[in-house]
């Protein structure tokens, strides 16, 4: 047999069927974690890359729209120093506080004009008190008339301060 014929017969060499089955099973069952890890790393880097691109795009959009001034944050001169609007607002707040300090302390119930409802309520209370006595019914009428006549006067319907009322009630 010629050598060439022998070599041609090599094409027909087949592995043992049982060996083939075992080898295939071992290959398929072998762990492929290394390949998966690498795929995860690449996926993570891709996410980072996408995120960075979006952030950079947003940064440039802010600059283009004027919403963010990098010079204000980076420059050594704080731009608040030459911010007339802010200065004016703070100075106005102080001026307002000065006006408050200049005003005399508030006097509770000083010279507020009594409302008709408040006066009527007190008159009604007085009438109820005085009306408990039958003999005083005429007096109630008299006092009610007195109240009606005096209510026409501005002075009479002006609420007294606590101290004014107390002063009058000591007499």
């Amino acid at each position, binding site marked *: 047999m010629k050598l060439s014929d022998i070599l041609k017969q090599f094409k027909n060499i087949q592995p043992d069927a049982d060996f083939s089955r075992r080898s295939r099973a071992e290959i398929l069952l072998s762990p492929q974690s290394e390949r998966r890890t690498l795929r995860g790393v690449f996926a993570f880097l891709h996410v980072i890359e996408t995120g960075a691109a979006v952030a950079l795009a947003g940064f440039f959009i802010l600059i283009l729209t004027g919403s963010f001034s990098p010079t204000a944050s980076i420059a050594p001169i704080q731009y608040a120093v030459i911010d007339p609007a802010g200065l004016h607002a703070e100075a106005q707040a102080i001026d307002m506080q000065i006006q408050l300090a200049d005003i005399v302390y508030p006097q509770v119930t000083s010279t507020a004009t009594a409302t008709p409802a408040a006066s009527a309520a007190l008159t009604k209370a007085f009438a109820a008190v005085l009306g408990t006595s039958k003999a005083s019914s005429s007096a109630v009428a008299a006092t009610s008339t007195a109240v009606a006549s005096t209510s026409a006067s501005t002075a009479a*319907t002006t609420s007294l301060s606590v101290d004014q009322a107390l002063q009058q009630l000591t007499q």
Partner: protein
Amino acid sequence: MHYPKTIAVSAFSILFAAGAVFVSGFLGAPVAHAAAKATIADECGVTQADVAQIVAVQNGPTLAYADEIKQELVLRKLLVGETIDCAQREVQTLQGSLASTSAPGSAQQLQSQLTGDLNEAAGFYNNELAKLNVVGIAGTKEIAQEVLTWRAGTFLPLSENVNNFILWAQNQNLFSTAQTRMTQTQRAVAFIEGATPNPALQTALDSAQSSFNDAQTENAAAEAALTQNLSPDQTLGLIKQSLGSLSNTYKGFSNVSTIVSGILPQ
């Protein structure tokens, strides 16, 4: 003895509330509600005509003497009671305002002390109201006199001190803001001076710094006056001085701003 009341807002309250809203708007200080609350004056509803009812009863031609006495007593108790109720509402307003005032740590002890004093004032009025139940006509007059005297000697100075304290506490936000601005201005001026010395700029900054030092000194003196319970007028004077100096500080800042604007490229 509570009667329908109306809320009277004085010119002071309008300005005070507007000022508080203004300040809180720019400085974030939660004082607007407290300040507005501090200055709403309750109207007692006791008028000259109400007091005249006593005279009307005394001169009532148809009343027997015994009835006159009984009715005058009832009227006097009603009016003195209503007046003391009004005074109590005054205390409650101050208590609410003081409680909602945000004070720095160093002043919190003083705030607690003032709160305690107001509680004592409320207790005093409660005692006087209780006494009113068991007195005659002369007794109601004595109670009115007692309350009047106590108010002049104790309560009015206390209420002025409380108002001063609230005003002073509100000012601390203004001082804090001014301190921040001073620091920024000093850095900016130092930077510019390093590059191109400018005597006018340094002079303007020195002026602002001098005014701010004065303001801080007067502010500290006002706090000391409050703590040492000096006269309310004296304390208020120091508070006004500190605000005046703070205002001058901002005039200095404005000068610095103008000069810096001229130096920096447009």
